């Protein structure tokens, strides 16, 4: 089994204040902490589990800045074999079709059985890159995968649909699978793995190195323009309960009891 796993370095904005910069097109990321996209963490684990079961190798591919190498080394520490980091200012990052074309550029001339991506990136969340990548590579795909069984020349994928219904499909290899969270239990990198990861190959390439024509993946090539970003108006009609934590708890308790809610 030869696999690739595509991982993205994303900001954790679940607890952070997000501000739009004065250009109206980017957000102020100076206070964000970045790490691997949640679904991609599960994709790494799945690729390593399959390698441990069937043998073979796993290559990591990521388009991102120098700082993301900490994340890439972590994937190598968990059992991936080598990595390619792509950095090039010319890539139209806002368009998943352009991102997919660049990822394909790093994969298509090599042999592979499976390509793993996350099903969804937490930051811009197009849920599109993996399926577009499959078409660029000219191979089969299944998205939102929550269980993988590798068979002879085929893969059986359990797709998670709305309401938790599972659709089981069988695909001929090679194939792209977009992985949904919860498919496995991502491991912690072992100390020994962290040491070994420092010695593993990590190539940094740009579009020219990949042989991808910039005019096929830049802002001009993209069919969409990111016009503006803005903070949506908060439509909260909630009654905000104020005070020290104990006071808040007491006020809430009496609202619930007096209102007959509990």
């Amino acid at each position: 089994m030869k696999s690739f796993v595509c991982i993205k370095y994303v900001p954790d904005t679940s607890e952070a204040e997000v501000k739009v910069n004065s250009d109206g097109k980017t957000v102020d990321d100076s206070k964000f902490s970045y790490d691997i996209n949640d679904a991609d963490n599960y994709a790494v684990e799945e690729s390593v589990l399959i390698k441990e079961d069937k043998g073979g190798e796993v290559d990591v591919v990521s388009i991102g800045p120098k700082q993301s190498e900490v994340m890439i080394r972590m994937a190598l520490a968990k059992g991936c074999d080598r990595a390619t980091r792509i950095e090039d200012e010319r890539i139209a990052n806002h368009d998943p079709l352009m991102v997919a074309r660049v990822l394909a550029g790093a994969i298509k001339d090599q042999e592979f059985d499976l390509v793993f991506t996350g099903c969804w990136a937490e930051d811009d969340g197009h849920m599109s890159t993996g399926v577009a990548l499959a078409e660029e590579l000219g191979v089969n795909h299944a998205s939102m995968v929550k269980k993988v069984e590798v068979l002879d020349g085929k893969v059986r994928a359990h797709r998670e649909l709305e309401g938790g219904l599972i659709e089981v499909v069988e695909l001929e290899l090679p194939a792209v699978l977009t992985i949904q969270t919860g498919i496995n239990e991502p491991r912690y990198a072992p100390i020994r793995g962290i040491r070994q990861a420092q010695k593993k190959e990590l190539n940094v390439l740009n579009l020219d190195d990949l042989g991808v024509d910039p005019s096929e993946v830049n802002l001009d090539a993209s069919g969409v323009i990111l016009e503006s970003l803005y903070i949506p108006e908060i439509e909260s009609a909630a009654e905000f309960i104020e005070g020290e934590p104990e006071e808040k708890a007491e006020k809430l308790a009496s609202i619930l009891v007096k209102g007959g809610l509990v």
Partner: protein
Amino acid sequence: MGKILVLAEHRQGVLRDISYEMMAIAPKLAEEMGAELETLLIGSGMDEMAKELSGYGAKVNVIDDPVFENFNAEKYQKALSALIDNMKPAVLIAPHTAQGVDFMPSLAVEKKLPLVAEAIDLTYEDSTLKATRTMYSGKVNATVAFKPADTCLVTIREGAVEAPEPAAAGDVEKIESPLKEDLSYRQFVEYIEAEVGDVDITQSEILVAVGRGLKEDKNLPDIEELAMAIKADIAGSRAATDAGWIPHDRQVGTSGKTVKPKLYLALGISGAFQHVAGMKGAKTVVAVNKDPEAPIFNVADYAIVDDMFKVVPALKEKLKEMKG
């Protein structure tokens, strides 16, 4: 000017709500564009569904062929690719669902057409189609404009808008399946129904739901005691069920359960739309979150901005006291 084609979605013999929801967005856009609006159904044995869908006044195009008995991304892509060539719609609107995300991006690549995924609204201004979508866990909205293209591809988020009431009846036209041969690269095997657990949270009167804010399962006992004090069942966000703190059958949201309790306490849950979609039917929502910007407050009736580990123990004591 041109045609807007809306692809309806069905599963296990019924039209899904998103099919109607798209009919809240598409007619408005058709008017702005001066375009003709038509819908499209692909499947096998589609008469009933076609009739139902025609209630929205737009002509329904139906591909009714045994080849499409089960959803198959490969076949949908082939069929849509041929339809784009034949009908040349200015816009093709499809659901942003487990089905839609499985073929729209590859269709866009195949046809070299632009795609905007998961729009929550569409407008037509200055001869340009523009989509609104959300980013950064719902904290930022983006306006994305299409460059001129033969067909613009869009997927629409589920539950973004209310479905309109059916209006006038439209025509139903059967069109021949453009797919001549069956494809074998990808095969449907079976459906497996979602797990059922010991408690059916869709029937619960009171739910205490926890999210990633719980941090570790050793923090669960406090939550369990609170739930016990008010006879509530415990539920969780996807982050809480993925982490293994809460059983999977108690996940609330689009890929979990839709609940409608009298009282829903959301503790350490950010309020991603996939979560909110599953609990917005709750009568009263209480949210405790230390982030004042958390989107969960948009659907809350009572809000506490604070550390749940400080609030929950006190709340539990007070409730025990007051309920005697």
